[in-house]
């Protein structure tokens, strides 16, 4: 499609790509970090580790991730762990097992975050999951 015949939206996509996403090195770094979190969410993860594996200073990495994904690596990690724990509980795992399997270190913080993110306690979620079966 020639540029003059291109629809307005397609032109905008080209413009946004050029204006906002021209730094491929930064994009590759944050995509790499997100993939690392997806593959290692059950491990003990922190910003220092992310910084070491990405060869980028901690605070720069934090800013980059937030700029491109709209949330910090830690917020993304929590969301990821909660989603995985929902999956595990629905598959029949106990709440305690799911809590440790996704990388949380205490039932208390897991339950608090689970309720905050999903609106219900893990035990309530488990009851509903059993009922659905």
């Amino acid at each position, binding site marked *: 499609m020639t540029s003059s015949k291109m*629809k*307005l*939206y*397609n032109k905008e*996509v080209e413009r*946004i*790509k050029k204006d*906002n*996403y021209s730094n491929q090195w930064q*994009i590759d770094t*944050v*995509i790499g970090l*997100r993939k690392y979190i997806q593959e290692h969410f059950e491990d003990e993860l922190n910003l220092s580790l992310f910084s070491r594996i990405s060869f980028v200073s901690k605070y720069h990495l934090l800013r980059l991730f937030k700029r*491109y*994904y709209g949330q910090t690596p830690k917020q993304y990690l929590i969301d990821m762990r909660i989603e995985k724990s929902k999956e595990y509980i629905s598959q029949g795992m106990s709440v305690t097992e799911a809590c440790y399997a996704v990388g949380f270190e205490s039932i208390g913080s897991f339950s608090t975050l689970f309720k905050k993110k999903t609106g219900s306690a893990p035990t309530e979620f488990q009851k509903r999951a059993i009922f659905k079966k």
Partner: protein
Amino acid sequence: MRIRLLSIPVSNQEEALNFYTKKLGFVKKLDIPVGEGNRWLTVVANEEQDGPELLLEPSPKDFEPARVYQKELYKSGLPYTQFSVESVQGEYDRLVELGVEFSLKPTVMGTAKIAVFDDTCGNYIQIVEML
């Protein structure tokens, strides 16, 4: 307050139901007649049938400003709504096979991959995969 329902204006509800269920793979949830041939017609994602519902809204048929708005969005190729997918390329290949037309082929935009297709009911819809 919760997000329970989102609307999408469609030029023909029956055709929209066919497209959204048979091609996109959504599931019909509610179908209630509301007079003058219109229906309260909602679909949900197959994998998340207790999730938010999408109302296939007949407003462009009965409400001129809605028709004009939809027409102008369509003319510009602006996607009114977007859906999240596991693989944009996979969905693109599957939908092209089913005869769905794309105005934007799979394109990487920074940390996302997007594509835009015509829903044949007056809208462009964007699919998104986070990279």
